[in-house]
């Protein structure tokens, strides 16, 4: 009833010193627990008084969650609590996996990148304004999608991948980790499991209340970047209304291996168009083996949008996605 905002309801705060303690706390508090990383998404929920967890587990004191390490296979392992600023500035990431540095460097603002973490950015919730305003939609456990209604305001919603819910994934780093074939390392009381980035993000058809595979009790501890795409040709672009702060209207991330003008291998992912960062594997298959050209890039763009179904206010996302895919595959990219 009351539209009270900007007063955080009380909670118990836990600041565990290591991953084991954190996982133990998560297990103990189950669905009453909330994992707090940089907090930039969490505080919005708390200040809107919509999410009221009983126990907040703040990860800042866990040293092993922070930092960037070389792995034996020549890749990198990035602690989930590593700040986006550190990801954007890290020499090895910039040199070999510049795609991720670019994506992290385009998140929001300097202050947010100083505090926000890679794990937090990847795990953030959707910004659908109906859902974030506390409306009882499918994603919030209700039985309708307000954003897909005939008169609804859905300029920033999805054109692909909808299943009842039409919200989009807002994470800038998500398409980058998908394009880099990253592995997501997850800990829980049951032990550790590793999930491919492309499988980590889930759409509403799988679970309409979650953005990722993480369930209560799970903790994303690190992101492993395999050596496979080191020093590939990368392209990242984020189209938004303002140069700072804004979430992407559409973003694209690509990794290309080109030999003698021929595309030998490619990864291509877009975000802002679907409830999850969308890897365009059909397009990937279509361009592998082709000579890199404006025509191939243009056709890839057209192919990418074939199944797009815009809503009332977001037709523009279809050509925008097409053009960004084209740019990501261009020779000049």
């Amino acid at each position, binding site marked *: 009833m009351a539209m009270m905002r900007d007063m955080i309801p*009380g909670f*118990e705060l836990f600041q565990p010193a290591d991953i084991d*303690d954190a996982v133990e706390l998560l297990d103990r508090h189950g669905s009453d627990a909330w994992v707090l990383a940089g907090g930039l998404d969490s505080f919005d929920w708390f200040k809107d008084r919509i999410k009221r967890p009983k126990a907040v587990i703040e990860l800042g004191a866990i040293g092993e969650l922070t930092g960037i390490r070389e792995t034996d296979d020549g890749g990198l392992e990035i602690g989930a609590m590593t700040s986006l600023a550190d990801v954007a500035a890290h020499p090895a990431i910039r040199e070999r996996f510049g795609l991720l540095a670019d994506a992290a460097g385009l998140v929001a603002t300097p*202050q947010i990148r100083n505090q926000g973490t890679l794990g937090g950015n990847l795990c953030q919730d959707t910004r659908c304004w109906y859902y974030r305003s506390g409306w009882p939609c499918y994603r919030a456990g209700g039985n309708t999608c307000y954003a897909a209604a005939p008169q609804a305001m859905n300029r920033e919603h999805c054109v692909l991948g909808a299943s009842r819910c039409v919200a989009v994934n807002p994470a800038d780093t998500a398409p980058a980790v998908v394009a880099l074939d990253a592995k997501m390392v997850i800990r829980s009381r049951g032990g550790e499991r590793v999930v491919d980035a492309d499988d980590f993000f889930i759409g509403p058809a799988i679970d309409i209340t979650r953005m990722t595979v993480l369930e209560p009790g799970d903790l994303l501890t690190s992101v492993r970047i395999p050596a496979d795409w080191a020093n590939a040709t990368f392209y990242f672009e984020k189209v938004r209304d303002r140069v700072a702060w804004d979430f992407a209207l559409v973003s694209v991330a690509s990794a290309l291996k080109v030999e003698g003008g021929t595309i030998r291998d490619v990864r291509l992912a877009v975000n802002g168009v679907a409830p999850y960062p969308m890897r365009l594997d059909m397009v990937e298959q279509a361009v592998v083996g082709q000579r890199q050209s404006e025509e191939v890039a243009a056709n890839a763009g057209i192919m990418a949008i074939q199944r797009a179904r815009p809503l009332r206010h977001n037709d523009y996302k279809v050509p925008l996605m097409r053009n960004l895919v084209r740019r990501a595959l261009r020779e000049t990219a």
Partner: protein
Amino acid sequence: MDDVEIILDAGPKTYSRRTFIKGVIAAGAAVSASGYLFRGPGLLSARPTAQGSVERLITLSVNGQQRRVDVLPHETLAMTLRYKLGLTGTKLGCDRAECGACTVLIDGVNHYSCSMLTHQVRGRQITTIEGLAAADGTLHPVQQAVVDEGGFQCAFCAPGFVMSMAAMVATNPDPTREEAAHALSGNLCRCGDYNKILNCAMRAAELSRTTA
């Protein structure tokens, strides 16, 4: 309005567990006695402390001083600074990490104090706008630069911008104008005084180079 029923009668007062909890919190040397915002323990935080959760009475290092303060688990740094430590130079323009008026330095790095818990900065060096000038009143090079360039209009954004400039000159004392704009891009000025603010930032870099 004759047909509107308005019930403003409280009926009998009931006593919550807060009354009980109040006796448990040792105010002592803590500044909570002079705190305004959360004078009581806060209704929702009144439940007994769970095992392993944070202690409320903590020491903060603010502007080079050690300050004992009673901090609720869900309290943001901006609120602690403004309502418990009397440091009202840190402004709240949006309380949502969107305007930068609340920017402070944590170990020299600029952060939105509206969007971090005070408990997250225990043991770290907090610098607010009040702590920038020297003890004798000598202005920080960034502040001097603003005076030299006549920066800001309404200046509600100014403390935040000044803190971001201070963070910038510490890491990049010789920025291009474009780099300075990027360094300050987490701060909003509705007066649109960006040109003058950039002049201040460039002057601040110059002063910090010559005084370093």
